[in-house]
């Protein structure tokens, strides 16, 4: 393969090796695992036809006429990763899936294919490959991509099938692509060099910026940053972790698939055309932005409707003894979503795994403005009680409470259309063994660091004085603030309600006992019997009160506690947005300063430094536009998220009220039964 020759210059320092290995391993897992198992089982799933299509026809199409090109596309594609909008690519791709194979297997498809491969892609390839940083990047990506399939099979058709498998899951995948790139974006921002690298790329490879601007704004981000993290990763930053790499892997694959889709081909041509003239790009970006967003929204609506994923957390079980003991929970998933390997599966997870999932998710997604559902808090006291192993009701209550909280937490995570797509979420739900989550200990060093970070965050939050332009945000931030206070208030009230309910239950029990005593020392037999009957009735009523108390607790108290935490997460999103704004403003200020110094230089007539100043201005202008766009995007995301949150909230509360009413109704019906049974007894007193 041509790829191997390109890989020959070792693109990564040793530093990066292990990470890469790990990634490719996982990649292989994902790829071969799904593809092979699916191929073996002739399931009538929707995934089946596309696989066939890719499995067989490609053999015809690719192996014969394109056999020579077949290896090349990958390369080309690699350099061109950002080219297609993931949106479109997937859309297009999902169409054939639904419409059966005819589109793809038809000769029409074959025709554009060579077109695509020969004309547009070829051009960037040669350009790009000449450029060292990009070359490096390409090689690396290729490496990532090539490795896993090699492990399973060398034939490219299988590779295709595998990727088809992965990406055949229609629009679900799309979110996945949208997210990770954003994670990557963070990295270059603090450090200057990557951006410089990028600008270099920009000037040299003209195709890139255009293509990057063309698709959705989300994807543009990747284009901006995809090249950037590579050099930085190879040079120093290890933080460029598993996920960003995986994302590369995926994005690559998308592109590869998009080669097969005829419409995408057209699209790509469109993308290439404006590439001749750089200024045309922004226009394209702005035009494509709007429709893609509405599309996304539509999809969200849809996915809410047809959502089919049930997660239950059951069977809390103590593992181990003493202070090292922990609770393990059974996490069972039931779904018809094709993104999962099977319809039902069960894994065992411990509490810190849940926290670990949250850490991973928030690390990846919080800077995008997503509301990450927070898990229940650590409770040292409660857990210690459980660890000590006292079989008292309070520890049982604690375990049950936590179990329910974890269940709700997971349900919220998978309810989030974007988070559901996160590989970590799937891994959490599916994978047998998870690496032990670290840094979740409440008192560990990592925890301390986290606290420190939070403190600095709080300080910086106070120092940032955001001049809010957006009325919607202005109001919403205030609303959320108020709402949190209200929720806290309500929570206190519900707590007291629950406590009173418990008190009532206790008092009723005591009353029942004293009535029983009274009955037993009563001479009149009928009265005595009636009294002991009454004692029984009161005992049952006590049970009812107890149940109702826990109903009150679980339906309202925990709900409110959840929402207090969630509102915290919402506020976190606002903070992220504010930070982004601050970054933009800082860049603006910097640009202003640079301009001033340029003016000074002009005034002082120092042409030697003038060029440098101009370069700097250009650089900062680029940054300002980038940050501004980032800010706009995060604003849009946060806004969408908050709207989603509000909807979700209303739905959640409504559901809980119905549940509560059902429990109330049930209690009343029980009461009616009890009293109806008692009435004849009372009347029988002689």
């Amino acid at each position: 393969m041509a790829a191997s020759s390109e890989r020959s210059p070792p693109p990564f320092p040793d530093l990066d090796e292990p990470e890469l290995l790990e990634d490719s391993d996982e990649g292989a897992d994902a790829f071969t695992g799904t593809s092979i198992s699916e191929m073996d089982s002739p399931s009538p799933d929707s995934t089946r036809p596309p696989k066939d299509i890719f499995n067989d026809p490609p053999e015809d199409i690719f192996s014969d006429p394109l056999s020579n090109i077949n290896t090349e596309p990958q390369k080309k594609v690699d350099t061109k990763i950002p080219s297609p909008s993931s949106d479109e690519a997937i859309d297009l791709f999902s169409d054939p899936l639904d419409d059966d194979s005819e589109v793809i297997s038809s000769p029409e498809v074959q025709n554009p294919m060579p077109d695509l491969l020969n004309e547009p892609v070829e051009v960037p390839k040669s350009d790009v490959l000449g450029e060292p940083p990009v070359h490096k990047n390409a090689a690396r990506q290729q490496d990532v991509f090539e490795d896993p399939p090699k492990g399973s099979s060398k034939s490219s058709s299988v590779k295709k099938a595998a990727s088809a498998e992965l990406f055949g899951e229609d629009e679900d995948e799309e979110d996945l692509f949208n997210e990770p790139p954003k994670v990557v974006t963070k990295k270059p921002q603090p450090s200057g060099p990557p951006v410089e690298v990028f600008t270099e790329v920009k000037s040299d490879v003209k195709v890139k910026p255009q293509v990057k601007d063309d698709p959705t704004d989300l994807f543009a981000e990747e284009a901006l940053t995809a090249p950037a993290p590579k050099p930085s990763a190879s040079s120093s930053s290890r933080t460029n972790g598993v996920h960003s790499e995986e994302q590369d892997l995926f994005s690559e694959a998308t592109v590869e698939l998009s080669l097969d889709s005829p419409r995408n081909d057209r699209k790509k041509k469109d993308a290439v055309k404006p590439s001749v003239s750089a200024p045309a790009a922004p226009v394209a970006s702005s035009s494509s932005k709007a429709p893609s967003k509405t599309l996304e929204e539509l999809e969200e609506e849809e996915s809410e409707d047809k959502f089919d994923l049930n997660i239950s957390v059951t069977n809390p079980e103590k593992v181990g003894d003493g202070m090292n003991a922990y609770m393990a929970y059974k996490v069972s998933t039931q779904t018809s979503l094709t993104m999962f390997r099977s319809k039902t599966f069960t894994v065992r997870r411990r509490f810190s795994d849940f926290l670990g999932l949250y850490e991973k998710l928030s690390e990846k997604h919080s800077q995008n403005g997503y509301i990450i559902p927070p898990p229940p808090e650590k409770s040292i006291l409660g857990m210690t009680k459980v660890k000590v192993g006292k079989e008292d009701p309070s520890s049982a209550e604690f375990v049950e409470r936590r179990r329910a909280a974890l269940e709700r937490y997971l349900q919220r995570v998978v309810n989030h259309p974007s988070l559901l797509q996160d590989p970590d979420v799937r891994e959490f739900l599916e994978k047998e063994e998870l690496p032990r989550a670290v840094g979740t200990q409440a008192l560990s060093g990592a925890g301390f660091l986290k606290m420190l970070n939070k403190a600095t965050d709080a300080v910086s939050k106070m120092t940032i004085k955001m001049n809010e332009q957006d009325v919607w945000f202005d109001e919403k931030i205030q609303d959320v603030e108020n709402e949190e206070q209200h929720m806290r208030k309500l929570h206190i009230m519900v707590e007291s309600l629950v406590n009173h309910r418990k008190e009532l239950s206790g008092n009723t029990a005591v009353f029942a006992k004293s009535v029983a005593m009274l009955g037993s020392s009563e001479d009149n037999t009928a009265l005595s019997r009636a009294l002991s009957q009454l004692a029984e009735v009161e005992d049952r009523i006590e049970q009812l009160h107890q149940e109702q108390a826990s109903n009150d607790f679980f339906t309202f108290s925990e709900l409110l506690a959840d929402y207090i935490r969630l509102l915290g997460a919402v506020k976190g999103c606002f903070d992220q947005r504010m930070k982004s704004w601050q970054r933009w403003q800082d860049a603006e200020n910097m640009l202003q300063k640079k301009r001033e110094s340029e003016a000074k230089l002009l005034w002082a007539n120092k042409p030697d430094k003038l060029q440098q100043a101009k370069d700097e201005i250009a650089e900062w202008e680029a940054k300002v536009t980038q940050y501004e766009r980032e800010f706009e995007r995060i604003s849009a995301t946060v806004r969408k998220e908050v709207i989603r949150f509000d909807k979700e909230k209303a739905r959640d509360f409504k559901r809980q009220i119905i549940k509560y009413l059902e429990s109330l109704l049930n209690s009343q019906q029980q009461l009616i039964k009890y009293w109806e049974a008692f009435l004849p007894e009372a009347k029988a007193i002689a």
Partner: protein
Amino acid sequence: MMEGSSAEEALSVSASSIRITDVTQDGDVLTFAIASQKLDSSAGVCVFRIYEDFDWLQQSLFSQENLPGLQGIIFPPLPSKALTSQSNTQTKALKQLGFLALGQDWQSYCKAMEFYLQQVAAHPTLCKCTALDSFLINYESPGKQRGRKGIFNRLSQAVEEMRKESHKDVDNFFQNERNKNTNLAALSKVATEKLLDVVMTEQKLALACGHFSTSLHLCVNQDDAAAVAFSKVCLKLSDVIEAVKQNFEKVASNSLSTLGLGLDLESRYQEAEKEMLFRRTCKLIELETVKKSTEKAKGNKREAMEAFQKAVEKEFNLISSVAKQEIERFHSSRVNVLKNFLIGWCELQLNTAKEFAEFYSQHLEACRNMYSE
């Protein structure tokens, strides 16, 4: 023997018609409006009495003269004086009056007073007391012409009470009755207190629900569609909680107005029986002392002592026979009273449960249909 001789002296109003129709509070003084129906005509009588008048009536009953075996009578228990002054907190009132301090505008207290009057009027012996008639009929307040303090007034608080109470009875019937009475008095008191706790907690819950329901209105926000939807949900929940609150209030007042009063009455009546039994025991001890001193006495002194002993013995026997009748009457009436309270209670609770089950299912229906459009 007492029932027969009463025709012309009987109460001129019907016992069951006695009602406390109204109560007014003027400063610390509660004034009760007592209405009753004349037996010989359809005319009704309405008089206004304060607590001191009730007390006067009770003392007059205690100190009736020329009524043999008076000490064997179980006097209907008069509720203790209600603390009305502002300085007295509710907890204090609760401690003193129990259930009677609950309820709006002294309703349960009035109920208890009414019940007291009815019991007195229905009592075969006590109804003949002229004090009762004048209490019920005379417009002037009888309290001013205060009778002397009854002899039994502080009797129960005697220092030697404990010693005397454990004195062994000569009659097995009374010994048994005393044991049972002690037992039941304690138990019914406890049961009353526990029921009171339950009712109090229900009231507290009602209050907490009220707060919760009101606070839910805070969440109302009309900014956008989602907020409006959430506000609707909150308002609905507020309604639901309001319903729960009403349920608690109703359940609490049901318990209060029936079983609460019943148990309270039962426990006070047991106390009254205990006092009667105690009076009899005192008489018994007196008789035994007289017997002893008669044995010790010599000569003509002995004759006098024997005569005295006979008189005491006769009195004691009379008291015992009255007491036996009273006990029987008490038992049958208390079972009846308790039965009625129990039935009333059960029916009320049943109705409330049905009513709210209906109410909740309506709410549930409304919730399910809420903004599904």
